[in-house]
């Protein structure tokens, strides 16, 4: 079978999809940009360690055939979380699974359900933060976006409930692409919590999922953000997270990525005005033949901003991870405080991590630090546990789990922490006998 021309097929898909008028501008500029971008190869610097060969073996550039799904609530339910909820299946909004309550100062609606004024606002704001010059998949998202979530919080309003956006993927008769978008606008001193969950049915997946989130955080505003990817290991996910930070604003983000066939997240945070703070914590846990790739770019364009970025990964079996963390400090960004830490644990001889921290500094009065470590389980710690009667297998799991649990413990939302802990522990074993102590599970 000859290789498929991904770009050409994508253009056909774009041209054959009818989209709403209020998105015409972003669709048009996205298509134009997309046409200028070559399909990444191993020689493309941003894709050096992530092969897209799989995308040329099958034609993914066809629309999803079905967005029906029964009994999927358990995939995303978070016990104890009282949140506004929007559920999308293969990119299609599901009103019957969603629940949006009224709150003063809150606009929360799916693009296609939005009223005329809201649609005008979406059309005006969309595509302003997302970076498409380098990122083929974000350009494609711009070109093809039709539905998504619009979240706007008015000046001085602190949302009472978190916003939970759920993306469910289901297996199609034939390979297909699903698209989704999230557009966030926080006005001055507004505050919101956004939880983006990506799940799938527990079966071999054939949907290429392309999702872009962009946010503008207003002066003194704060966005608490969670991005939790826990789809089936065969999933294909191309995600983008783009955030503009205005004066004295804050962005706090927790990202958890379990592995997929290809799971790629591009992050771009812009400190645009000054005094803003970005706190990013991420965990990636590929196993078997899974692949995870995180490219994070932080742009310090103004003075007195801080970035604290901590990513940790555990690679098992023959899995592979890529972490590229760049902090770029421009000449005006004096008094910047920036820290980047990336620690990795390799659980097998065949597991791989390609980690590249990049600090590029053009201002002279800044404090920056970065560090990368790659290690195996600490034999002394393992002996310590075993010398107390704990079996070798349980000791390995305790140590692996501990490595990421340190970061999980810092998640402020208790309900999410409780949801994530077992999900993480299951990554190391399905034997509940071995995870009962770290999970305080008395039912085993």
């Amino acid at each position: 079978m000859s290789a498929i021309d991904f770009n050409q097929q994508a253009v056909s898909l774009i041209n054959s999809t009818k989209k709403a008028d209020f998105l015409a501008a972003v669709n048009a500029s996205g298509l134009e940009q997309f046409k200028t971008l070559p399909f990444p190869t191993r020689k493309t610097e941003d894709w050096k360690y992530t092969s897209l060969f799989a995308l040329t073996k099958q034609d993914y550039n066809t629309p999803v055939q079905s967005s029906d799904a029964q009994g999927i609530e358990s995939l995303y339910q978070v016990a104890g979380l009282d949140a506004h909820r929007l559920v999308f299946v293969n990119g299609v909004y599901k009103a019957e699974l969603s629940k949006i309550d009224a709150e003063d100062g809150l606009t929360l609606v799916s693009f296609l359900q939005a009223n005329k004024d809201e649609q005008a606002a979406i059309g005006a704001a969309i595509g302003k933060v997302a970076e498409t010059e380098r990122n083929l998949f974000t350009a494609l998202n711009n070109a093809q976006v039709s539905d998504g979530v619009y979240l706007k919080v008015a000046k001085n309003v602190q949302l009472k409930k978190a916003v939970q956006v759920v993306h469910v993927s289901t297996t199609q008769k034939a390979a297909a692409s699903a698209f989704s978008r999230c557009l966030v606008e926080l006005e001055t001193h507004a505050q919101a919590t956004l939880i983006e969950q990506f799940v799938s049915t527990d079966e071999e997946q054939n949907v290429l999922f392309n999702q872009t989130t962009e946010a503008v955080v207003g002066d003194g505003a704060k966005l608490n953000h969670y991005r939790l990817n826990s789809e089936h290991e065969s999933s294909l996910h191309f995600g983008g997270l783009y955030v503009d930070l205005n004066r004295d604003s804050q962005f706090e983000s927790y990202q958890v990525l379990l592995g997929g066939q290809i799971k790629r997240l591009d992050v771009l945070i812009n400190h645009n005005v000054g005094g803003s703070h970005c706190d990013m914590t991420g965990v990636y846990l590929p196993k078997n033949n899974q692949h995870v790739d995180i490219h994070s770019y932080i742009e310090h364009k103004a003075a007195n901003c801080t970035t604290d970025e901590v990513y940790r990964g555990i690679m098992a079996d023959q899995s592979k991870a890529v972490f590229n963390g760049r902090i770029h400090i421009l000449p005006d960004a004096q008094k910047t405080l920036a820290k980047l830490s990336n620690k990795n644990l390799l659980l097998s001889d065949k597991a791989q991590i390609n980690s590249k921290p990049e600090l590029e500094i053009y201002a002279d009065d800044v404090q920056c630090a970065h560090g990368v470590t790659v290690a195996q389980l600490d034999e002394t710690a393992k002996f310590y546990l075993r010398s107390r009667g704990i079996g070798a297998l349980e000791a390995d799991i305790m140590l692996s789990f501990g490595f990421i649990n340190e970061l999980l413990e810092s998640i402020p939302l208790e309900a999410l922490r409780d949801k994530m802990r077992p999900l993480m522990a299951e990554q190391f074993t399905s034997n509940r006998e071995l995870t009962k102590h770290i999970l305080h599970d008395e039912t085993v």
Partner: protein
Amino acid sequence: MLTINNLQASVEEKDILKGLNIEIKPGEIHAIMGPNGAGKSTLGNVLSGREGYEVTGGTVDFDGKELLEMDAEERAREGLFLAFQYPVEIPGVSNLEFLKASVDAVRAHRGEEPMNSVEFLKLAREKCKAVNLDQNFLKRGVNEGFSGGEKKRNEIMQMMLLEPKLCILDETDSGLDIDALQVVAEGVNSQRDPNRSFIVVTHYQRLLDYIVPDFVHVLADGKIVKSGGKELALELEEKGYGWIENGDV
């Protein structure tokens, strides 16, 4: 309780223990003293089953079983406890989770049901109190950010929870000031029992003022070169290890 017969061991092909013999009966406290490099820590590590130590000869009988045939965790479950010279920090695993996993493993080996978490928490709090550790230490990562004294007290607390038959204290006095040393020694003394034995490995006699041994052995160059009562420790302190090493014994 423990019979070590002609034990020989090497690390990275270097012979460290060169034919060591000790007989320990239930309820006895044996101190093992010796200069640096004599093989004191190696003895603790070999007995507790640490990897990287190769036993090249000899046998160790532990309560009727061949100790050297067991994995580290089996030895612990059979009732051997090593109090580490440098207890390990394990961030991300809470002390309480660790202690419960440990106690459950030992209980399961004895054919006992695991304790429920409420019962266990109550017990762990009691033991914290006994070694003068704040209860908050149960929630913190294992030894994470503990001071030297707190780490050693945590070791003694583990010993109290596991109720071992034989405890090996590996230079438990290192890095402790006199107040911390007294707390640790009190904890150890409270665990003295006609059915529980202790091996106290130390470089200095000071610890033995607080944990009074029944026997003192001097380890030099991988062998016990002299054994005696507690007064031997004082003699050593006075004359120095040169006394042993110069062959003047």
